[in-house]
């Protein structure tokens, strides 16, 4: 795969807090930093509540960031935006949602769902052009022209997800955030949708932020993978690197926790089973967020928050085990 170096999206120290009551603040995303290169797929994985969906939703401005910068194609889109620039952003950045049953308006015909973006951005000059575009989109995602006049309830889950993809593609975006696009689908249908996403990327040079909890699927589709835990990024590297040489103890245990569909391997494999549950993001542990479940936790982990730094070229990690100063001690 060719090296992709042109940065399409830069996320710097992004934070998103929610006020859940007068006293409590839920720190859903608490300072994540990463880049997305043009034409690549960046996967974001983590358990529920780790902030991966919030990250995606904050980038596309479904939420306003509490702090931090989001730079899209050289332009800061993380601060206050005028309605006009928000509209411009939504033309270039689109989202595919998790639940194909909830993300399509049941009272709208498929053609109107797909053409909504076209209408808002005035991309079609005549109604004929509009319909041509809708037909083109339907065929791109593997549906038929005849489907345009139907309603969402007439489709299966996989087909609905295709409609969601067609809607996202209709405004010809550069960047697509796919938030768990396949987790509501059956295994055999999942493969269909993933193959479709990959074909579209090859043909149209799209950039994806692929958010999922299914690590094997993320590995399959992504060029690089970021692992999140409790609002923080734990590790980020190329997908092969993350799976072959995970550095962060959380990544290691996450990988060993996935049951593999290979009985012989499953019998011999040694697994690290984490104790306990993910702590509450309202009152997260001090220092490193993972220390309460980490098998290698040291004193320093409770006191100092580990720095997010690049240990090897393109391999980022936030863990005291890989801090320069402590490295000698460990060895």
């Amino acid at each position, binding site marked *: 795969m060719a090296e992709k170096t042109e940065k399409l999206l830069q996320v710097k120290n992004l934070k998103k807090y929610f006020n859940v009551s007068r006293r409590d603040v839920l720190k859903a995303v608490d300072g994540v930093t990463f880049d997305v290169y043009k034409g690549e797929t960046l996967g974001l994985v983590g358990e529920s509540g780790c902030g991966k969906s919030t990250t995606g939703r904050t980038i596309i401005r479904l939420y306003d960031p509490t702090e931090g910068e989001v730079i899209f194609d050289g332009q800061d889109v993380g601060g206050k935006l005028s309605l006009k620039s928000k509209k411009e952003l939504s033309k270039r950045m689109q989202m595919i949602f998790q639940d194909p049953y909830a993300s399509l308006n049941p009272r709208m015909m498929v053609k109107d769902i797909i053409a909504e973006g076209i209408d808002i951005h005035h991309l079609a000059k005549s109604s004929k052009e509009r319909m041509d575009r809708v037909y083109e989109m339907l065929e791109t995602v593997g549906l038929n022209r005849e489907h345009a006049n139907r309603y969402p309830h007439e489709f299966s889950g996989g087909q609905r997800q295709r409609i969601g993809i067609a809607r996202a593609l209709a405004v010809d975006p550069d960047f697509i955030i796919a938030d768990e696009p396949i987790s509501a689908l059956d295994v*055999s249908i999942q493969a*269909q949708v993933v193959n479709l996403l990959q074909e579209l990327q090859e043909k149209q040079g799209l950039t994806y932020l692929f958010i999922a909890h299914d690590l094997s699927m993320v590995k*399959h589709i992504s060029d690089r993978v970021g692992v999140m835990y409790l609002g923080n990024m734990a590790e980020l590297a190329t997908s092969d690197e993350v799976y072959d040489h995970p550095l962060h103890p959380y990544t290691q245990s996450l990988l*060993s*926790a*996935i049951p593999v*569909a*290979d009985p012989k391997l499953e019998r011999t494999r040694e697994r690290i*089973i984490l104790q306990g549950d993910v702590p509450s993001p309202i009152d997260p542990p001090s220092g490193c967020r993972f220390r309460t479940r980490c098998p290698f936790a040291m004193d320093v982990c409770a006191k100092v928050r580990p720095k997010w730094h690049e240990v090897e070229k393109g391999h980022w990690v936030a863990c005291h085990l890989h801090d320069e100063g402590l490295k000698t001690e460990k060895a």
Partner: protein
Amino acid sequence: MDHLLEIKDLSVVFHIFGADVQAVRGISLQLNKGETLAIVGESGSGKSVTSKAVMGLIPNPPGEIATGEVLFEGKDLVKYSKKQMQKVRGKDISMIFQDPMTALNPTMKIGKQIMEGLIKHQSLSKHDAKNRAIELLQLVGIPNPEKRVDEYPHQFSGGMRQRVVIAIALACNPKILIADEPTTALDVTIQAQILDLMRGLQEKTGTAIILITHDLGVVANLAQRVAVMYGGKIVETGTLDEIFYNPKHPYTWGLLSSMPKLHAKTDKLLAIPGTPPDLSNPPKGCPFAPRCPHAMKVCTEHMPAYTELSATQKAACWLLDERAPKVDPPATIGVGGES
């Protein structure tokens, strides 16, 4: 050999939407003492309906067990009255549900929910039942059981609730435990904990488990035998290794190769085209024929019979007929073990 549970030619029909949805269409299965049998398939393949039929939990109307027998230690559970079934349920056969958030009663202390079955089936006194409940909570790995027995479900996390559900299911030492997608609603690290717990408990108690899931990883981790369901029928059964390394049915091939491998590089997933059949109007022949890349004319006309491939493996596919052309499984099948 005497089987603990034997399902014979079971059919379940639901009379809804002005049609008869044939959710399960004549399946036969055996479960032996102490083993784990996995039933895999997609949503709508009939795997959950099968387990509900065993438990006598098919709502009637609209559901109905049209034909077949469910023999538990030689006695047909289908013929049991509601009252008789209540004595089996929770005592001899119990069940773990998919969603631990809704399986527990939110207005009852969890101790009381565990004690319910103990008092009813084993006629323990309240005091003894509570002690046993504390023991069970300890067994499923809940810290501080003396204190937590008096707490409510909302005070537990998802993984902890699933442990409570398992404790309730195991309270009366059942002979069969039906686990319907026991880890689907959980995160992977919690899933690993629960799978580990289930394996450990099975070794201790010798309970036979029917595991219903769509996750082949979970199957490889827990099961000894596998039944693959599609369109209300069992298309292939065999031991774990037979199904994973030497599958014979094209649907099993498709299922195995549509999952990305964590330990190997795959360029493109082999997707199964199309969608599962509509069971209110099931196809005349093999249910998989419309999606099968090797389908022949006979497949759409007649349902294939089972071909015995070994003492433990059988599959229903016309390709296994001696008159059929030889078809090789996709290259990704049958390799494994090393990475």
